[in-house]
């Protein structure tokens, strides 16, 4: 039984990554341009929740059952995965070959990175943590599956609610968990606290890896004002010293996440509440935007940079409402100085497009709190 549960968790994580790769590959695909494989996976995660939001929100608003959403979502995912496989199959094979080549060339580095990720994955999947917020998030998934409805019953008590709580209405992340639990029969606790916890931890470390590589491998080669193109070519010949630097940086990141602990820090959320939307926004989304900013700062983001930023911002807003206030501020402090410095005024519409989802969701919530509208859970 224990082995079966462990296998369930491992398979769940693998399936998640196949989905994220399929979704991500669709928007990082551009003729004659290469996008890092790992970036496709990370962006794919946010794109997955972005698409899910549009499929979920209308049936939920009109109090349709969860099973109806499941019936809508499964074919949607199947079509996207198939389409992506047809369009990107050769890219995936190429990526796999490159990954195998990298492992062969840097076995020790690969092993160290895997070990760093494995330590964190084991910690978040095997430790017991009592958190009050799980009483809402996990219970909401369990309640939605049990009642076959979406956000209609109060997760805390099980009582019927006459209206939707708008704080959580647009954060459809938990409904995706509910869909998977209903479809597979995996209990909400196992899916959220093990499968999603490991998934989010691996994704966060992927972004750490991308950031570290960007800083050390690309940064070293960028010296001497090499052009972006020549630096890209040099990237594939990155030296062992730079690779070792990446490992050391990831190890220090691990130490900081293990020790920068008060009940408020993002590190605590990552280590103990990994599956919660807040942890995803505070760690994964914030650092992903920072990574995209670094690449754009270096003029190395030739594949739809603002679309990727937009998908991350919108996707994060559908994961936790915390993104609505955090990401517009992050976009502003990162990109406005860059736009001014580069005099890249053409970027301004892109910046505004990325800020809009968070601002709109926040305004809707304020209008709800002020009593201007309410979404009832029954016809009125």
């Amino acid at each position, binding site marked *: 039984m224990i082995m079966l549960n462990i296998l369930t968790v491992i398979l769940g994580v693998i399936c998640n990554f196949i989905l994220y790769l399929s979704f991500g590959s669709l928007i990082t695909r551009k003729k004659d341009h290469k996008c890092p494989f790992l970036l496709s996976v990370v962006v794919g995660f946010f794109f997955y929740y972005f698409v899910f939001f549009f499929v979920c929100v209308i049936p939920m608003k009109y109090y349709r059952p969860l099973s109806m959403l499941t019936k809508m979502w499964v074919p949607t995912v199947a079509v996207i995965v198939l389409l992506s496989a047809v369009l990107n199959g050769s890219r995936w094979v190429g990526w796999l070959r490159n990954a195998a080549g990298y492992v062969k060339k840097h076995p020790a580095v690969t092993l160290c990175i895997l070990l760093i990720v494995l330590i964190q994955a084991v910690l978040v999947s095997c*430790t017991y943590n*009592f958190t009050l917020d799980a*009483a809402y998030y996990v219970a909401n998934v369990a309640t939605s599956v049990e009642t076959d409805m979406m956000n209609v019953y109060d997760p805390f008590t099980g009582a019927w609610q006459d209206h939707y709580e708008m704080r959580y209405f647009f954060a459809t992340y938990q409904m995706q968990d509910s869909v998977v639990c209903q479809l597979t029969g995996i*209990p909400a606790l*196992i899916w959220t606290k093990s499968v999603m916890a490991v998934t989010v931890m691996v994704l966060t470390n992927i972004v750490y890896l991308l950031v*570290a590589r960007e800083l050390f491998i690309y940064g070293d080669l960028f010296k001497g004002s090499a052009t972006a193109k020549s630096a890209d070519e040099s990237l594939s010949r990155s030296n062992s010293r730079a690779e070792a630097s990446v490992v050391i940086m990831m190890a*220090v990141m691990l130490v*900081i996440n293990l020790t920068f602990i008060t009940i408020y820090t993002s590190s605590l959320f990552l280590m103990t509440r990994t599956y919660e939307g807040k942890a995803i926004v505070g*760690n994964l989304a914030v650092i992903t935007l920072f990574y995209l900013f670094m690449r754009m700062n270096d003029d190395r983001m030739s594949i739809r940079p603002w679309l990727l930023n937009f998908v991350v911002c919108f996707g994060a807003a559908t994961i936790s409402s915390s993104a609505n206030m955090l990401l517009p501020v992050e976009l502003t402090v990162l990109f406005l*100085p860059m736009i001014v410095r580069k005099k890249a005024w053409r970027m301004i519409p892109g910046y505004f497009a990325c800020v809009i989802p968070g601002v709109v969701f926040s305004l809707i919530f304020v209008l709800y709190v002020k009593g201007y509208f309410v979404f009832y859970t029954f016809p009125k």
Partner: protein
Amino acid sequence: MQGLNVTENGIWYLRECFANYTGPCAYFMLFAAALVYICIKGTKREKQIFVPCSVFLLLTVYNPVSPVILDRFFDVNSEYYRFFWLLPVIVLVPYLMTKLIVTAKDKNTGAVTAVIIAAILLVSGRFVYADGIELAGNIYKMPPELMEVSEMIHDDSASAYPKAMLEYEYNMQMRQYDPKILLTVDREEYMYAVTSQYTDEMLSDETHPQYKLLAAVAQYREIDKDELTDALEATKTQYVVLNSGHPRIGLFKDAGLTEAGRTGGHVVLKYDIKEPYEFELVDYSVVY
């Protein structure tokens, strides 16, 4: 942030909020030191990446006036600390530490630098498992006794959705594991009961009979047994689950509850509702 609000603290809210956020950790100081280093000795690219955003954050998020202004439009009391997540501590500090190690003049200097950095890291934070690491006892990451209690209630109850009042931790965890068990009290009410005392006026409030149950279960208060049964009746509570050492077990038994089961550390008490009640899910088929 618990215990802090902008109205009371004004421009000092930020200082208090920041102090609570960092606690005993020195990572923000390390970040500041790293930023100064980048400003003085960093490359053009490093300055472009780390300096403008940090300065911008200093002027906005870390400006004592910002929470005061924001609080006029949004309730930021409990969530302002999340803006601190935006400072790229997790990027800059490890980056500079790594850079200092790998760019050392020779191997010996690099090794000494690494040791110094390791020492700085050791004293700069508080280990996440400083109070001990607790491994999950099962794949559900739930106390095994809670699972036993759930099974006990379902075995005993004829209802598909029995309603229960549980001790604090179980009340927060039960519906994650078993959404078929309804709870008498929600999270906020329970948290209020464990952090504050009910006034006599609150306890006599007929519209909130659950206060009497919470007063007995969470505050160990002596409640009149008739009032207790009235509260159980009004809230349709069929089961009360308490720690086996709970001082009010006798009170509940005196009020007519019977022991439906017992685990290693908990007692499951049953109340026979006078007016039978069956919770049913709302039938939405008439709507669509």
